């Protein structure tokens, strides 16, 4: 969040007005009966930071990917096994796709984890939805990694 504070002597513009009232929320680290223990790690801080750092990298990787696959050179028309083989002949594009796969999956999984935490109110539902999410994420990342590393242009 912004560290900016309004100092009455020099600054008369408030961050909040009728259109944009200050939110009234409980202190985020307040302990309740349901959450009596304080958290022991900074996992959520690192998750928050990861979303922003991976986000910046993904803007480049994913928009570049879309440009190549869906915009340049006939759009989707050209895509096929031969096109994939041509691109993965280069270690550069293999690395591009590998980094994009890992960052996008982890970024997406962490995003969905947040969404599940927000909307699944029953602890059991939350638990199972997140386990399903983690299983699908591990499976997809490993499958994608395997495919990039074992790709064989002469499979047939």
């Amino acid at each position: 969040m912004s560290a900016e504070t309004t100092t009455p002597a020099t600054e008369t513009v408030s961050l909040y007005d009728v259109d944009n009232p200050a939110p009234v929320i409980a202190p985020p680290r307040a302990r309740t009966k349901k959450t009596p223990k304080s958290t022991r790690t900074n996992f959520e801080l690192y998750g928050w930071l990861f979303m922003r750092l991976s986000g910046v990298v993904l803007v480049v990787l994913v928009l570049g990917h879309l440009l190549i696959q869906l915009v340049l050179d006939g759009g989707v028309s050209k895509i096929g096994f031969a096109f994939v083989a041509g691109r993965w002949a280069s270690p550069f594009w293999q690395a591009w796709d590998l980094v994009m796969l890992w960052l996008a999956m982890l970024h997406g999984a962490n995003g969905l984890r947040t969404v599940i935490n927000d909307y699944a109110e029953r602890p059991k539902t939350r638990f199972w939805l997140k386990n399903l999410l983690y299983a699908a994420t591990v499976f997809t990342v490993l499958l994608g990694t395997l495919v990039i590393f074992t790709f064989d242009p002469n499979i047939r």
Partner: protein
Amino acid sequence: MPAGTLYRGREGMWSWVAHRVTGVLIFFFLFVHVLDTALVRVSPEAYDEVVATYKTPLVNVMEYGLVAAILFHALNGLRVIAVDFWSKGARYQKQMLWSVVTIWLVLMAGAFYPVLQHTLRTLFGS
């Protein structure tokens, strides 16, 4: 407006809602996309067959929708980073959202023909 709610409407809330919705949609597509790409390890025919569905008019239009979702999520994500790390970010969040929407509209107009050309050529001839 109920007391104590975080939902305050306007640019701040709706951009957050759109960021969530597009994020979830993109994640589900990514899951499917890794699975379809994995078919290159089965056979060239299996891969080309599933890619053929990506070239049908309906799915081609959905690809334009995917581009729309990703472009919004990318541009608004940069806005979120600016809100978090730029000292004046929170104050200019509305202006930044309208900048995001403007850039998004320009890029979507530019992407219209390139992304949909396969369908346009198939349906209306070259």
